[in-house]
Every structure is written in structure tokens, then in C-alpha cells.
């Protein structure tokens, strides 16, 4: 087939590059929504930890967790935090 004239070929070239760009943008948008979810969960978790810390200060019962588990839980939290810092 003979080469297409520039005005017609341009549409195909633009189409190919736009498709690629759209695919990448869709992927980035999906990843951004996942990161938003992580951020929201992190905020919830921070609120949960704060609520528990306040409950401890006032001598009130903890929001979750059985009696006798507190020291163990704290130890686990410290361990995870330490591991995260190390990474």
C-alpha cells in the first residue's frame, strides 16, 4: 500500500499515542484510588489508637481486646513499629 498522506496518517499516529497515554492514566488513577484507601485506613487506625490511648489515660475499658492482652499487644505494636523503622 502507498504511504498515507500526512493529514490521514496523523490521525492514526495521534490515536496510537493517545491510547497509550489513556491506558497509563487509567492505571495511575486506579493506583491513586488505592493509595487514597490506604490513607483513609491509616487515618482510621490512628484514630483508633488515639481513642485507646485516651481510654487508658482515663482508666476506661479499651475499645477492643481481652483482659490481660494489653502488655502483649503493646509489645507487638512496638515490634511492628521497630520493623517498619528498620525497613
Amino acid at each position, binding site marked *: 500500500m502507498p504511504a498515507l498522506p500526512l493529514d490521514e*496518517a496523523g490521525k492514526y499516529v495521534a490515536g*496510537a*499515542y493517545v491510547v497509550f497515554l489513556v491506558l*497509563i492514566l487509567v492505571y495511575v488513577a486506579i493506583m491513586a484510588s488505592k493509595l487514597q*484507601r490506604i490513607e483513609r*485506613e491509616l487515618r482510621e487506625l490512628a484514630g483508633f*489508637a488515639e481513642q485507646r490511648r485516651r481510654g487508658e489515660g482515663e482508666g476506661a475499658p479499651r475499645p477492643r481486646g481481652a483482659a490481660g492482652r494489653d502488655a502483649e499487644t503493646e509489645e507487638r505494636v512496638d*515490634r511492628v513499629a521497630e520493623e517498619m523503622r528498620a525497613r
Partner: protein
Amino acid sequence: MYGKGLKTLSIATVATLAAAACLVFFYAPSDADQGFVQKIFYLHVPLAIVALAGFVVAAVHAIRHLRTGDRRHDARSYVAIHLSIIFGTAVLVTGAIWAKASWGKWWVWDEPTLVSFLIVFLLYATYYPFRYAIEDSERQARYASVFAITAGAFVPLNFIAVRLAESLVHPRVFATAEGGMPGKMWLTFAVSIAGMALLWTTLVKFELTAKNASGQLKRLRRALDAPDAGTQSRIAPELS
């Protein structure tokens, strides 16, 4: 730390892709035979090469996972396949557009290059349902690694088959009897493929960072005895 160096990598990716775009449209000469349509080559071929190389990388991580039992390699293999499938989709769509412009048809079934790539793509497309079908996460990771290795073996076969096949319409530009591409085209192609490889690496790193953050969050939730948000994926491996 998956996020380490992500900013530098992202800047390098954007700079290389911008340089590639400038070279494609302002430096590389138009093809004598195909004219301006040949500009799709600098997008389509690097995408195909990087997608296929990504499948090989996934197979290498899968081997490392089976050898060491380290779930991080399974996650890397999973993400590499994920990104390569996205790149593969772009290859098929840009290839179809190029085919329509050059040959007047969106798809040619008797062309080995197209069909063999489609077979490899469809093979990898079954990775997700295959993985999803297995409940136990240990078995899921192990079987997915076996799949990634087996499917990865098809990639070099695809390359060889394409080179051996008597092509009817698909152009050959590397090491042809006519001497292949001129220097300006080679340089543009080299920058394009470097940009595409950087993009693939950046996106893999980006996804692994997000996965790592998600995994750490889950661990923290467990450590705090917090109620589960119930939003964790069943198929995606976690980096926890």
C-alpha cells in the same frame, strides 16, 4: 523500602520519555515506504519488547520465590505480570491502529508475529483467574510461580518463532539484508525503548510500594487488634 529512589526514577522516566517524543517527531526521518505512520513504530515496538521482557522478569522472580519461599518474590512476579499485561494491551491496540493505517486491516490472522504475541498475551490473561481459583494463599503463590515460569518459557519461543517465520507483511527492521534502520532512527528507537523500560520499572516500583504500605497497614491493624476494614484483595499477594 520499595519507595526508595522512586522520585528519582520517576523524574528520569519523564525526562527520557519527553526526549523520546522530541526525537520521534522532530529528529527521526519519516520512513520512505510508510511515511508518517511509521512513527507508531517508536511506541509499538518498545512496548512489545518491554512487555515480553517483563514476563521474563516475572518468571525469574517466580524461580526465586520457589527456591527461597520468600513471598516478596511472588509479589514482584505478580506485579511484573500485571504491568506487562497492561503494556501488552497497549501493544495490541497500537499494533491494530498501525495495521489499519499500513495494511488497511485491523488484524491479519496469517501473520505469525501478531498471532504469537496474542497467544502469549492470552496465556498471561489466564494468570488472574488461575490465581483467584486457589483459596489457600501458600498454594496460590506456589502455583502462580509455576505458572509464571512455564508461561515465561513461551516468551523466548515467541521471539524465535517470529524470527524464523516467513513473514508476509510484518516489517523486519533489525539486521535485514538492506542494512536495517538508519542511525537517526536507531538513536530514536534506543531512547524510546529506554524510556519505556524506565516507565515499566517505575510503575512496578510504584505498585510494590503501594502493596508494601497496604501490607504494613494490615500488620499494624492486627497488632492493634483493630477491626478489619475488609477491603483487602483476595488475589493480590501482600507484602507483610
